[in-house]
């Protein structure tokens, strides 16, 4: 917890600093008389014979680093990046054990959830079948009412009746599917 709270200041810039800095820039741009001519003069004084930036005059043949590598290095070396986990042998084994147990626990939870959903679906299907086949005319009426899809997509676009995918399925729609 202590470690996390020490990171918090890194991830969330403190409001006092940002507000003060932003207000100071606003004030300076508002109240200070801007002097573009003077800034140009100073730049010319630094590089008197050329107006192009100095970086462009550097030697063309020097080895250029790939921009992606620069970006990766920037983010890896950034102070906001948490340090990599460096553990001793036994410590990393303990870490691995805990990680595996966590994965196993998550998987067990997922399986339990899927099993319960499947059970619910099956029992609802069985109840509908019971209504349709063995419950007389009153049951048949209830079955028809239960199968009616009228109004269930009220207020929700009907496109959401099916899981949205990026493209059509590879093998098309199976018209001949039966249970």
């Amino acid at each position, binding site marked *: 917890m202590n470690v996390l709270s020490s990171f918090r200041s890194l991830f969330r810039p403190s409001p006092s600093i940002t507000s003060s800095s932003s207000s100071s820039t606003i004030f300076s741009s508002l109240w200070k008389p801007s002097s573009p001519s003077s800034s140009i003069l100073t730049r010319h004084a630094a590089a008197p014979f050329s107006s192009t930036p100095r970086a462009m005059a550097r030697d063309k043949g020097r080895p250029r680093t790939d921009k992606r590598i620069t970006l990766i290095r920037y983010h890896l070396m950034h102070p906001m990046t948490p340090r990599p986990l460096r553990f001793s042998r*036994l410590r990393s*084994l303990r870490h*691995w054990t805990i990680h595996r*147990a966590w994965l196993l626990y998550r998987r067990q939870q997922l399986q339990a959830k899927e099993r319960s959903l499947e059970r619910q679906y099956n029992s609802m299907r069985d109840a509908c079948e019971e209504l349709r086949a063995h419950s007389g005319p009153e049951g048949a009426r209830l079955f028809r009412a239960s199968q009616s899809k009228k109004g269930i997509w009220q207020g929700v676009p009907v496109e959401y009746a099916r899981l949205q995918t990026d493209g059509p399925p590879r093998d098309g729609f199976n018209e001949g599917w039966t249970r």
Partner: protein
Amino acid sequence: MSGCKRASKPLASLWRQGAKGSCPNSTLGVSFRSFTAGPARFDEANVQSSKADNSAFPDPATAVTPSEEEKLIKAGILPVGSRRRRLALQTTANIPFEQLPYQCFQEARKVLQADREEKLKQIESERARIAKLQSQDPAVSGGEVEKARRLRSMQNYLEKLKILADINDPLIKKRFEDGQGDMNRPIYRYLADKKWREYQRPLIVQRITQMNVVPDILPHLDPVADVRLAFRRHNIQPGQFVDSRVSESPARLKVQVFDKGERFVTVAVVDPDVPNLEKDSFDYRCHFLAANIPISPTSTSIPLSRLSQDSTILPWLPPFAQKGSPYHRLSVFVLEQPNGQKIETAQKAVERDGFNLRSFADKNSLKPIGAHLFRTQWDEGTAAVMARAGLEGADIELRRKRVEPLPYKKKDGARYR
């Protein structure tokens, strides 16, 4: 010293003495610490004990008193870790890994243990189901073919369960990483196979396909066994150029298979790059051939020089390349013999020159399971190696035939201006 510390000192010293006296190898998950969280202050018992073995040189892993530290530093050895860690090591040295008193770790172990128990139960029930199916009449289980298919799939599931029961054990992982895994157990074979398929298998597949060993010598190869090659102490990487003096002595193979059981294999070393001047092309030559070599996941070493007389068909011929010929690919093939059968080794028909591994494998219905490859070329030792092996041709230098340029009429100079 604060009042709290002073109050807790005799208690802590009592604990420590009790731990040392009654159960020195106690494996309880309790570490004896005084109630202080600051750097260790020593009670009388500890000071006395350190004074008693002052004559011995302090251990840098457990030296805690300033005098011991000073002694170590004077000797040029820095104490290991922090003083607190060293003190903890002193009092809790003999706790086995699985009993380390970390709460989250212990909770995780409980979860994994429960899963393992469940997997063991599943293994039991699957074994019972397999036994039941085996004793069943094939007419009931839907015919011989269907029964065999179901048995196979149930066996596969059983193997999978065996691996799943052990895959989460940290000690098994540790033992495998230390190279102490018992290859008779499926989990270690599974881990070794996975590790081999990470790097070594892609490497050998790349080499044998890049250097066209596979379509040149055998039409197809899907390696399932790890093959390592060494000459005396030189481990050879796949495709490496080997000095002819190094490869003069027979190689030593290490063939690691990842499925259980013993089987017989045939080992063939074939050179497909022997120049044939009459045909203006290249021939095969067999440098070594041996059959009926028993290997299993635990017996992996095949020293080619120390195989029995009746299993060796063609003894080792030192690889050589004549001067001027392009490099020779010496490919080592390990082929599995079908159903543990032995093949006839007293074959008169096997000749070194023009040996064709395809037809040999077809005739004996061998299945290639692994390969290795090294290269040889003319070097300063080749002539002596050939002389010692009684081979001729060391005094011949092969030259490429000069390709006469086509008749070419020089165009007028105006075009080249």
